[in-house]
């Protein structure tokens, strides 16, 4: 209300991302900052709203089996592009552009960061200018990978025609100033610094966007970004303020802006090693020999979980931007299991559990033994202030129930770097437990739940590739996941997914700790902000306006 009018009526909006975008082509960078910056310019066929439901964006409607958009055998999906759509340069947006996007990203020499989006796609056809048909290798119950969500937008064939494969990086002009269908057009791109944009004159909705120009500043640190929005009022929108809760609270008192929180699928968790990491085993065996001497004992991992005061962790580390979770997949609602609770700490209960299981201190050193093996845990994590605080707290609790805990932290570029030569990567997992966070893109957890499959475990044989970090392995789990992959019905998929989630957690694959939300801040004068964790935060930037 009160915010309708001609396009560009509200002048300038200033956005600050403390990680600076370095490129505007989301296919050449997987970084959130780059993808979100690009989302203001290039758009997918469909995207998600803050609840995680799919919205038709450049198409008439979402194709489903019911409306015939998806074939019964789940191998083909047909998108119908909204007629009359144009690129920001005025040329028509056609199915050829969509097919080009597919070709661009799947070119073997292109190094496309979003190649997984097109996994399983056999071909893309364009029967006519408005129709895109995607054929899959096999039945694909969730066919909304390609061209959906901020990681899979459509780029203009005319602009990128000469930028295929190895030449992709050389197209600086195109990579910095892609032509898109979004509400804004890049006028100047300074890598790692600032992007200037103006409203797209050919945008499909009249009177939108309300802002004539956007200054998209990048760089610095989260505190400075928060300060610029909430305290000095120099900026209108600050992204992903990973700050201590009390810092956010003080900044809020500045009164110039307020924080907004949204929750997605990012879960901070402790992974439990299912192989024996004993250093005496030798480099090749450490990650193969099963089982772990004591971590697979239900009493042990349940006690470990019970000893943790998750509410306190949330308070200390994330404040409003976190909530207690007992699940691997915390959202969307359809897939979020509710069968487990874990929000109260129960040290005594944990002790009792261990005592009952006969895991007691037999040699009087204060540390319990299981079958003569003392419960000594090496707890590793990436180097990060909040994680080290968590480590210190958790160490304290675990020691209270009779374990000995050694802490270790590894620089994140090494930890997550995936260098097969380094012994400190999270894939090698040369520790008993390790803590980090992970999530999945989009709303469908099938691939993510696939991280629990036996054959996804990183081993020397697989060159340490694979996402099953804890090397969890259960036949029932594998079978159930297969079932999920063959199920098309949403309700049914939800039920199976929840069951998979529960199975993994209950069998000691991990100890979920905190469901980490996204906390951003916007100026009190900026209207229309609707924080979205399923898609780009800037997904509805066309609807933003100035509150007068």
């Amino acid at each position, binding site marked *: 209300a009160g915010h309708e009018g001609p396009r560009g009526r509200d002048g300038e909006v200033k956005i600050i991302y403390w990680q600076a975008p370095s490129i505007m082509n989301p296919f050449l960078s997987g970084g959130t900052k780059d993808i979100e910056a690009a989302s203001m310019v290039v758009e997918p066929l469909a995207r998600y709203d803050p609840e995680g439901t799919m919205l038709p964006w450049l198409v008439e409607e979402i194709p489903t089996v019911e409306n015939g958009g998806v074939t019964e055998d789940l191998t083909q999906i047909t998108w119908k592009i909204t007629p009359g759509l144009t690129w920001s340069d005025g040329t028509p947006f056609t199915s050829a552009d969509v097919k080009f996007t597919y070709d661009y990203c799947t070119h073997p020499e292109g190094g496309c960061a979003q190649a997984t989006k097109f996994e399983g796609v056999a071909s893309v056809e364009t029967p006519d200018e408005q129709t895109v048909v995607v054929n899959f290798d096999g039945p694909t119950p969730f066919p909304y990978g390609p061209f959906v969500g901020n990681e899979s937008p459509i780029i203009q064939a005319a602009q990128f025609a000469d930028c295929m494969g190895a030449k992709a990086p050389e197209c600086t002009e195109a990579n910095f100033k892609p032509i898109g269908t979004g509400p804004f057009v890049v006028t100047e791109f300074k890598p790692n610094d600032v992007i200037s944009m103006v409203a797209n004159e050919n945008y499909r909705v009249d009177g939108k966007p309300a802002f004539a120009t956007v200054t998209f500043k990048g760089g610095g640190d989260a505190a400075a970004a928060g300060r610029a929005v909430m305290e000095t009022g120099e900026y209108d929108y600050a992204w992903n303020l990973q700050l*201590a809760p009390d810092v956010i609270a*003080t900044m809020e008192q500045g009164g110039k802006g307020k924080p907004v929180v949204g929750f997605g699928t990012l879960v901070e968790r402790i992974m439990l090693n299912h192989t024996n990491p004993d250093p005496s085993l030798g480099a090749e065996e450490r990650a193969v020999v099963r089982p772990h001497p004591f971590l697979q004992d239900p009493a042990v991992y349940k006690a470990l979980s019970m000893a943790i005061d998750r509410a306190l962790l949330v308070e200390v580390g994330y404040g409003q931007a976190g909530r207690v979770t007992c699940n691997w997949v915390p959202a969307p609602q359809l897939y979020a299991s509710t069968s487990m609770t874990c929000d109260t700490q129960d040290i005594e209960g944990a002790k009792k559990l261990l005592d009952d299981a006969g895991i007691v201190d037999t040699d009087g050193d204060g540390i319990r033994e299981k079958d003569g093996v003392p419960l000594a845990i090496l707890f590793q994590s990436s180097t990060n202030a909040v994680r080290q*605080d968590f480590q210190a707290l958790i160490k304290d609790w675990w020691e209270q129930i009779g374990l000995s805990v050694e802490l270790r*932290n*590894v620089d994140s570029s090494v930890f997550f770097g995936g260098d097969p030569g380094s012994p400190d990567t999270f894939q090698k997992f040369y520790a008993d437990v390790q803590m980090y966070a992970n999530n999945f893109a989009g709303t469908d957890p099938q691939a993510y739940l696939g991280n629990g499959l036996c054959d996804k475990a990183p081993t020397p044989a697989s060159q340490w590739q694979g996402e099953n970090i804890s090397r969890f392995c259960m036949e029932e789990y594998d079978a159930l996941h297969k079932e999920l992959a063959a199920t098309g019905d949403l309700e049914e998929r939800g039920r199976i997914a929840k069951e998979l989630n529960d199975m993994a957690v209950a069998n000691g694959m991990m100890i979920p700790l905190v469901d980490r939300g996204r906390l951003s801040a916007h100026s009190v004068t900026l209207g229309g902000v609707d924080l979205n964790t399923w898609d780009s935060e800037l997904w509805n930037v066309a609807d933003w306006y100035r509150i007068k």
Partner: protein
Amino acid sequence: MTEVLAEAIITEPHPATNKWADVWRQFSHHKGALIGLLFFAFITLFVLIGPYIWTLDPNKLDIRAKDMRPIYTVLWNGEARVGWNHPLGTDNLGKDLLAQLMQGGRTSMAVGWTGMVLALFIGALIGVVAGFFRRLDGPLMRFTDLVLSLPILPLLLVAVTLFRESLSQMLGIETGMFILIVTIIGLTSWMQTARIVRGDVLALKEREFILAARSIGTPNNKIITRHILPNVLSPIMVSATLGLATAIITESALSFLGVGFPPDFPTWGKQLADAVPRMTEYPERVVLPGLAISLTVLSVNYIGDGLRDALDPRIRGR
């Protein structure tokens, strides 16, 4: 004969004593240096002995007692949450500030001292050798210039990312980081010392007493240790005081850029960097470590000033 004796009486300035007593006497005439020394002694004792008196673990999270203010805040703010159990207050997780300050000081001072000593050692060695042996002068000074032309901070960052892992592996993360940081600081800050020392050695070499030493058959190594080194001590001392300060500051800059010691390992620089976002509500968290750094640097500089005067026999003679 009589003349000589008369002279002897007149030129008797102080009862003859040993050199270091003399140095000390001159030093104690320098008011700034004396205050500097006192403060430096205080802060050294504070970080060395402190943890034995104040035995709280600096990394202990006392979450119930978080965000306490230093005891002195009650002077103007009766409502402030203070307590003798945490005289300087606690941080947002309830870590005791006093204990952190002591522990941080230990690290910072250790980094400062070792970094400085290393830089001095390399610098003095290269300087003396280059100045003394004409044949080595060219190559060594070329090398010094070369190292001087390396962009230090960037390389520092690269080197930290480079060796952090392997060293932490070998020696544990804390010792590993310590050795890494100290080595890097040492390896990147010896050049000025080397240049100054070389210049002084070159000048000294022209002084006749070196020639005299050679003419009485003093071998080269003795010339260096007996005649050259004591006489370049004063510029070395000055470099030392500056070096200590730079080492402490460099470490804090590394911490700020996130490549310093691990998060659970306090240093003054890191405490300062970490507290910056909460500067307005909890000023003591930046002021205390900041002050510790500044005052240490300041006192060391004054000590350096005093030492330079005290080691200069021309001044000392007066």
